């Protein structure tokens, strides 16, 4: 009685082997079943009657000229004219200097000008928004500077009528502060 109840290790191993072989055969069968049908004769395939928008010729991927025209229109429309004094002079850092910023009347966009020092990246001036046909002759800097010469960049931020920023253009300036 005891002998029959005890599990025979040999039997257990065999059982696992059988399960393993069975599983392998099952998955192999499934895998083989998933293979694409390699029979290309398809002799029994009949034409299905379907109507569609069939166009003679080749796919229209190659019309580079038309594409170029469209891209050109877009870039030409985005041209921005800028005018600014390249060398504004301020008697002192708190006095007005001739900035000479103009938004020419032929522009499509308004712009705001921000001047930052090249070395410290400190913003020393922000202009009000200028519509096409407006200019600023003189103004004060918003940041105190000692006497000397400073390399700076004026960035023109352009906006459309909805206030969306369209892009920017930079102008290198030499700012001079007197004593």
């Amino acid at each position, binding site marked *: 009685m005891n002998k029959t109840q005890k599990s025979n290790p040999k039997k257990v191993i065999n059982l696992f082997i059988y399960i393993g072989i069975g599983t392998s055969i099952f998955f192999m069968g499934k895998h083989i079943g998933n293979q694409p049908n390699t029979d290309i004769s398809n002799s029994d395939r009949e034409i299905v009657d379907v109507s569609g928008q069939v166009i003679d010729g080749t*796919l229209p991927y190659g019309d580079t000229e038309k594409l170029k025209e469209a891209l050109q229109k877009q870039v030409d429309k*985005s041209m921005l004219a800028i005018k600014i*004094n390249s060398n504004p002079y301020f008697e002192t850092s708190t006095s007005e200097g001739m900035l000479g910023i103009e938004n020419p009347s032929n522009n499509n966009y308004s712009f705001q000008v921000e001047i930052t020092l090249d070395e410290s990246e400190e913003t020393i001036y922000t202009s009000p928004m200028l519509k096409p046909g407006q200019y600023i002759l003189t103004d004060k800097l918003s940041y105190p500077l000692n006497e000397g010469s400073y390399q700076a960049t004026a960035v023109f931020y352009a906006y459309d009528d909805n206030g969306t920023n369209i892009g920017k253009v930079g102008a290198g300036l030499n700012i001079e502060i007197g004593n």
Partner: protein
Amino acid sequence: MSKKLLNTIIIGALIVPATLINATGLQENLMANNQSTVEITAIAEPTILDVQIPLTVQLNINPNQPYVSAFTTPTIDIINNTNAPVALSVVSMKAKSGSPIVSLQSKYSTNPDDNNSWANLSSKDSAKYISFGLKQKDGGINKWKDPSYSLSPLWLTDETSQTVEKIGDIKNKGQVQLEFMAHHGMAFNEAGTFKYDLMFKVGLSE
């Protein structure tokens, strides 16, 4: 009587020029003593930079074209209306969210036949990396300050460097026409718009 008259004339002829000479000398002396200097002040007004530059540029990649003609660029006109030459520079391009980041062209081989080339990038890497450069338009208007100057293709640096790279000096009242170049992948799962921040910069030519 006639002799006396003749003598008077001769003496007069001698005295009058001498007096005139003396008078001229006197005048010179007076001028030397009262020397007045006229100061001439020439005021050089600062130059107004006057330039026209495009704000946005749309470029197109058509992966269904051969690699060499897959990239389409419009012509970029830079017009210098200033009465002086201006230096034109470009500040590195930076990708906006969702666009492939601007990388060095040397990141991958530029020979499309190489396995490790831009043209052989996977769809994952095509959406991740791109490289841009600028060149002057073949047969376009190129009014550089130095007529012998020709812009060699200028490949932009990695977008993280944000360096200012000089393109060239445009002559006064001159114009140049540029075009973009690109190295890019050819495997795109969907049509999309990639956006980049780009800033051209002008300044007086040094």
